[in-house]
């Protein structure tokens, strides 16, 4: 096929507009602050074989894993008007709170011509602790596992299934609202796909979807080609799993050969008891994120980007966990370390481009209980930004989410309306960035006082050793978790779960970014 550069550009914009509009709908119709305020969701569209054509720029950790969800869903036979829900990390999911809804786009044929899908982080999906981000030792403690299931059949919600699901979560009204928002987003995507095909015809639309994958592939190959050939290795650790395992190694060997890259995780630790195991889709997302950062910002993110990059990992390791490993934190914590390691390997050959380590954690905090104001149960979940790493020509940015996530904070005033808490401090953690010729960005301090008894789960990393600096600069300051009860300050480890009382204060200080280059006085 002869690709017309004009049509290529027009289709590029039309496809990404579909994914973006799905995101607008999901955002506006969702019920939970988690989606509207924090924007913890992603939307994407796929071809008939499940190749991702376009993804709206939402959350990088969903990058590689969304296509795996769609392929898992494709194993079920679809009819028009069906939608499939799933969250099973071992069948296309990442961790249980991320629920993906996949819908086929039927045109004239008997088989779907395209697919649309979106994934949203639900604030609770049951399991042993409120917020469903527990310090677990098996997937069964983390909440309800949803294998690919037809939740909507020919346009009708399966009331039985829905009732079953809602009976197993702590905040069913909110869940149901978010579910319908996800369905609306997919319906919008389907409608826009039909508009597009009506204008250009199916064959042209299909051909240009394919041409766009080739286009992104070319851009990715050019990006890889700009890296000198060679083999580059780097290792770092996850500090602990909350169950006694410490310094859990993650090692990446990046091999660059012309316009191809192989990333091998040989040398990484075996999977652990605690919940920081990453399933392979997360490792895929993290590696692709790093390579995607080497492409121009405006390039479309699609399946073509994945073609020149091969990932090798051994099943049963912490970067390729097997059922029934606990995985709640793999998505949010281990994914960040995988990025740190792959970037670390490339830093040596791309010193001008690759910065020092960013905070390397998402500082997950979940609080659940019964709101004394309404006597209704609540489940609050949030992640907190930190420092970004400095680079060859710049200081790291402060108080911002980095790498695999980009969720927003919940405004203090929105939070106090919705939950029985009071925020007592929310500020930049001055001086926490690693010093150097260029300094790492500072972390954040967030302090919450409870108005009632509640259970709290914190899942964080980089609490013992800070994010690494590069070329002689200092690491960022490690984060700190503390509980303040009646004036007494008590340190807590990186991962803890406990019942707290009214008036207790939880204080989270997030890590600063690593510095870059030796300070002039040291030289």
């Amino acid at each position, binding site marked *: 096929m002869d690709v*017309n*550069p*004009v049509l*290529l*550009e*027009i289709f*590029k*914009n*039309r496809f990404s*507009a579909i994914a973006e509009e799905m995101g*607008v709908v999901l*955002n506006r*119709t*969702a*019920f*939970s602050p988690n*989606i*509207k*305020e924090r924007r913890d969701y992603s939307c994407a569209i796929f071809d008939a074989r499940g190749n991702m054509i376009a993804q709206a*720029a939402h959350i*990088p950790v969903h990058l590689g894993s969304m296509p795996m969800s769609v392929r898992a869903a494709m194993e079920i036979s679809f009819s028009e008007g069906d939608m499939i829900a799933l969250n099973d990390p071992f069948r296309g999911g990442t961790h249980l709170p991320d629920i993906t809804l996949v819908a086929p786009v039927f045109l004239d044929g008997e088989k779907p011509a395209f697919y649309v899908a979106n994934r949203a982080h639900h604030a609770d999906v049951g399991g042993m602790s409120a917020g469903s981000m527990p310090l677990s030792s098996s997937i069964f403690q983390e909440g309800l596992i949803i294998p690919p299931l037809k939740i909507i059949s020919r346009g009708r919600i399966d009331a039985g299934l829905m009732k079953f699901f809602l009976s197993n979560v702590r905040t069913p*009204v909110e869940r149901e*609202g978010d579910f319908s928002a996800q369905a*609306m987003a997919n*319906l919008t995507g389907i409608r826009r796909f039909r508009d597009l095909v009506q204008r250009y015809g199916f064959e042209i639309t299909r051909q240009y979807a394919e041409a766009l994958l080739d*286009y*992104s592939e*070319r851009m990715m190959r050019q990006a890889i080609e700009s890296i000198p050939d060679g083999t580059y290795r780097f290792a770092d650790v996850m500090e602990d799993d909350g169950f006694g395992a410490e310094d859990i190694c993650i090692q990446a060997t990046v091999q660059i050969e012309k316009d191809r890259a192989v990333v091998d995780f040989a040398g990484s630790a075996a999977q652990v008891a605690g919940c920081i195991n990453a399933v392979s889709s997360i490792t895929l997302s993290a590696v692709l*994120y790093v390579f*995607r*950062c080497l*492409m121009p*910002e405006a390039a479309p993110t699609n399946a073509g980007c994945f073609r020149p990059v091969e990932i090798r990992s051994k099943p049963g390791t912490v970067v390729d966990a097997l059922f029934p490993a606990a995985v709640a934190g793999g998505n949010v914590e281990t994914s960040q370390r995988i990025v740190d390691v792959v970037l670390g390997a490339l830093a040596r050959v791309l010193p001008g*481009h*690759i*910065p020092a380590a960013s905070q390397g954690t998402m500082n997950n905090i979940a609080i659940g209980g019964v709101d004394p104001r309404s006597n209704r149960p609540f489940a609050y979940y949030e992640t*907190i*930004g930190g420092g*970004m790493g400095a*680079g060859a020509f710049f200081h790291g*940015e*402060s*108080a*911002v*989410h*980095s790498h695999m996530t*980009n*969720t927003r*904070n919940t*405004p203090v*005033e*929105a939070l*106090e*309306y919705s939950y029985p808490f*009071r925020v007592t*401090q*929310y500020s*930049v953690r001055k001086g926490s960035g690693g010093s150097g010729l260029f300094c790492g960005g500072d972390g*954040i301090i967030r*302090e919450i006082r409870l108005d009632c008894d509640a259970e709290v789960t914190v899942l964080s990393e980089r609490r013992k050793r800070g994010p690494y600096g590069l070329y002689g600069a200092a690491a960022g300051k490690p984060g700190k978790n503390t509980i303040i009860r009646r004036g007494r300050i008590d340190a807590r480890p990186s991962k803890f779960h406990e019942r707290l009382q009214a008036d207790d204060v939880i204080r989270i200080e997030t890590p600063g970014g690593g510095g870059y280059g030796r300070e002039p006085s040291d030289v």
Partner: protein
Amino acid sequence: MVLVGVDTGGTFTDFIFQEDGGWRICKCLTTPSNPALAVLEGLGRISAADKPHVVHGSTVATNALLEHKGARTALITNQGFEDVIEIGRQNRHALYDLHYHRMPPLIPAQRRFGLRCRMDCTGRILEDLDLDAAEKRVREIEQAGIESVAVSFLFSFKNPGHERMMGQMLGRLGIPVSLSHEILSEFREYERTSTTVINAYVAPKIQGYLRTVLDFMKDAPLRIMQSNGGSISVRTAMREPVRTIFSGPAGGVVGAYEIGRAAGFNRLITFDMGGTSTDVALIDDRLPLTLESSIARHPVRVPMIDIHTVGAGGGSIARLDSGGALRVGPQSAGSDPGPICYGKGGQLTVTDANLFLGRLIPDHFLGGDMRLHPDKISAPFGQMAAQTRLSEIQVAEGIVQVVNAAMERAIRVVSVEKGFDPAEFTLFAFGGAGGLHAVFLARLLNIPRVLVPVNPGILSAIGMLLADVVKDYSLTVMTSGSCDPQRIEEMFAPLETEAVKDLFAEGIHRNRISLKRYLDMRYEGQSYEILVPARGDDPVAAFHELHRRAYGYCSVQKNTEIVNIRLRAVGVSEKPELKKGELSNEPLCEACFLGNRPVVFEGRFISTPIISRQGLCPGNRIQGPAILVEYSATTILPPGAAAQADAFGNLLIETWTG
């Protein structure tokens, strides 16, 4: 009395006024270092006539923000929340940028001061304001040479007590003080604080600027255009300058609204295509408002005309990227070096493509005042044709198609994505390049009709003349949507009393005041609000209907809540009347024909008549293909389209005939 509209633009400051029943235009070169100079020069030229009554849209506030050149400002917050404006929403705007940097906050850390005091979400005082510490801060601010202060405490919209105390203490410094509950009485501390900080940051500049203009005008009346589509007294503009940001584009939409209404069209999609960017807005029988604007990435949550801007215009640069796609924009050649055909530029732009296709006519470009260089573009088109393996004509048409696709997407955002079918609207095209693309764009969106007004290049200034006096009020109430009507009356009562008092002070007579009530509603537990007009009937039912329109469903069994109440107080102002002529059946007069030239439509050259717009009489009909030229704009009628001049001189174009 002569009403004069004055719009400060990037290149020209436009003046428009009525004389002998017709519009008179005057243009002065904008003086960026002190924009008052151009305003004074123009007014000097005009005031030979009567005592002018001026409505002015200024870019002083906008530019101070874009160039980061506002006042030395301090911020007072609760202790522990001094960094809220720095952290923002903790997200980054570019996902895959390892070198990411956010916009630095307008007030650096050393000028942000925290004080012990706290309200809860019901307005109950949890901790009193520490007066000694507050007094100390005031003295520090006094000594630090601060020019303006913003104060933003948590939940001040529920209980403004502490902010008021602070305001009183700061009052003695004699510098502008912006209190968050007065600027924006709504929840979400980052957005409220940002809006208040912007107000404080631009206040001293605006005040100085307006004083200069006022001094010159002696005691002649002056009103200032706001971004909400209404004008306001100078006194209010000095106190709340945040409301004057983006007033130029707002003037354009108001102009479109009023001209469209007079011509019989109250459902419009406005399309203002300029050199570097394009603004679009959707008018469904009322001015569209948004509460989610931002400037230079700093949120501004006062109501503004809902305008969607894309970085594509006549100056957008075309290039073949490394993956093989023909990209147009967002880089722009601007006015310097400008498109290649302006003589200095080196990269092909949309304007060059229009010239190549024969759609821009060198002799008539800005009345021939600006020379175009058609000879300079053939080599670059040849090169790009070789690169893309397309013909030169395909390249030129391709550039226009790609930029049209970007415009189409912008219009879909304001229409289709909000539940409106563009086919039910009229495309109202203005700006320098609007008429060149309008009919092609209308065809892409199945829009049946295009309207190009008289003087499309200075519509913003016209809009300012036609704008009413408008003041917006809001308050976060967070209450059940099914509350009884009596409660709603009680909530609005204090806002309405204040509004009537304020409009009185603006010099508006009581019988020219209208108060419009709105509710920000959502389903209980949802976190996005929909603006619901509250016209006394059932707001809950209206909310369900609006939700269904925007998102395709509603849940009547779910509880609703009212998050904010809003009041829009309108003082209907004296306006110039739009001059209406008699429609005639006379054929186009000979003098209108300026000759024929070959123009490309769908891949081939077609001999096309050039017609002078000035010579058209109401009722004249023109069949496409044709090119209509006037001083500041060109309108293309492709084959299959037809135009008629209406009684007001507007060009009404049928997108498809037959």
